[in-house]
């Protein structure tokens, strides 16, 4: 609820304070400073992936790989159980003199299903962790923010941050080289 206790100059609930940066080097440097000051609810918006920005923002390694791993293990399990049930339990059939449950024969399907489940769960995991799909984002209301898809770099520190103080942040962003510092309403 702390997010809504902060209001913008016009009285509407405040989402964040944003600032524009001219290039990746400046925005990376600014991110390092904001990280070191201990802010937790903030983000960098960029038209392209910046090498080293994860480290500069202090982001933890992505947890998507756990989703992928879980998908792989369930894919292998499901595929083996399915094929075992189909060809050794439900409708046993001798093919080429091989045993009913011949693991060699089940390997390709097992592999394919493992790959399929891995990729699906990685995508679902990525979307979940990113909070997607998202119907609307307060940042999208800002005309200047839209240029982030073109040639602008933006840092926004959100009102939900426990250390949020509008005046401090305005000053901080300006010191770090931010331009067009603006309020983003909820």
């Amino acid at each position, binding site marked *: 609820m702390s997010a809504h206790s902060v209001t913008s100059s016009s009285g509407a609930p405040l989402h964040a304070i944003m600032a524009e940066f001219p290039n990746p*080097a400046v925005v*990376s440097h600014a991110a390092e400073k904001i990280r070191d000051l201990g802010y937790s609810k903030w983000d960098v918006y960029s038209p392209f992936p910046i*090498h*080293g920005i*994860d480290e*500069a923002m202090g982001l933890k*390694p992505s947890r998507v790989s756990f989703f992928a791993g879980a998908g792989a293990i369930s894919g292998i399990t499901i595929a083996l159980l399915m094929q075992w049930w189909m060809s050794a339990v439900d409708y046993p059939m001798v093919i*080429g*003199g091989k045993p009913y449950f011949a693991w*060699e*024969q089940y*390997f390709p399907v097992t592999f394919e299903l493992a790959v399929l489940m891995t990729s699906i769960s990685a995508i679902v995991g990525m979307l979940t962790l990113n909070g997607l799909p998202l119907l609307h984002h307060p940042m999208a209301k800002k005309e200047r923010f839209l240029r982030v898809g073109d040639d602008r770099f933006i840092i926004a520190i959100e009102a939900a941050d426990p250390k949020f103080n509008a005046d401090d942040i305005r000053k901080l962003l300006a010191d770090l080289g931010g331009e067009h510092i603006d309020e983003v309403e909820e």
Partner: protein
Amino acid sequence: MSTVNLRHDLILADDNIRLREGAGRGLSIALLGLGALLTVLAVLGAVAGDALTARTALFALHTGFILSVAFPLTALVLVMIFHATNAGWSATIRRQFENIASLIWIAVPFFFGILILQAVLTATKGEGGSIPYLWKWMNAAYVEGDPAFEHKRGYLNYGFFLVRSLIYFAIWIGLSFALNSISRRQDEDGDPKHTITLGRLSCIGLPFLAFSIAFAGFDWLMSLDFHWFSTMYGVYLFASCMVLSVALGTLTLITLSSFGKLAVAFTEEHLHDLAKLLFAFTVFWAYIAFSQYFLIWYANIPEETMFFQVRRAEPWTGLSVAIPIAHFILPFILLLPRPLRRSRGFISFMCVYLIIIQMIETYWMIRPEVYGVGPWHWLDFVGIVGPVAIFLGLFVAKVASGPLIPLKDPRLHEALKHKNHI
């Protein structure tokens, strides 16, 4: 963003990129002595024992020969891939792989040693020509009237076999000599044109290298049982042996940096990429090995299944079950987490582990052809470790003999600030 301080004069300082005079000489002499001793023991065991013991010893020595050729041969592949793909990150670590590859000449004395030993044993313990020692098809009396052999007579005959082997040696020694000498010439004159020459040479040489490796596999290993055939044997041999040179090179780099050499030139980032290569070749091996097994299992044709039939039966069952677990499942799981791939201690353990596993697998590929003698005969150890120790002794001396990185490679700056972002 990069926090590494790129002081070229410090990185290229002599105490960072050169070993002191006489470094590693003790280790090299010890390895050479051990290797010579074990090889002589294996030869003596072969000469003194009965026919079956002689066969065991000869097969063990053959395994040792294949392994000590596989190290430089796969290193040559790696160096050529680095050049062909213009891999900037590899510029600082390439020299160690060149060092491994430069020892490819070792194939010649070992190969002729094996041939001579086979001839001597066949002459002295021939038992009326009924037991040809290594390559059964070389015995005219043995293959007389064998319909499976009649088809292969045009390819599998002694003269053509020798000619082919000489062609392989010419390709390998030629490529390794050219790549090494051009790379070392660049150390002196720093001409960037050499890098282009090396890239072109690698692109042209790689197909020749690939085919010669595949055919050497057919000739030296697959034809041990000339009834059997597998068209993917060449790539199977390549896939399994690649891990040898990656592991040995990585181990060398870790060892050198633990002695305070190669600061900045060999970092966690290079280690990470080498560990990825280890991981890749373990997975590639599993893919190829399973594909070969799967096709033969499915078709179920007697001549083809022989290979696996022998190895699935006692006394080889244990090894056949252990190898997929030890060579694929364990390394796959262990090399997956990023922090482990960036740990020097863990990766050096994995390198030693994978080299040992690969030695056991090559042994498993070759030795079951000796019927009647189970695994782990004492001659197996001396015959395999002997030639490999000789190779390692020569390698240690080679590493100490020159600068540890290519001094004037134009891609050096790329390698020095190499970083893995994922």
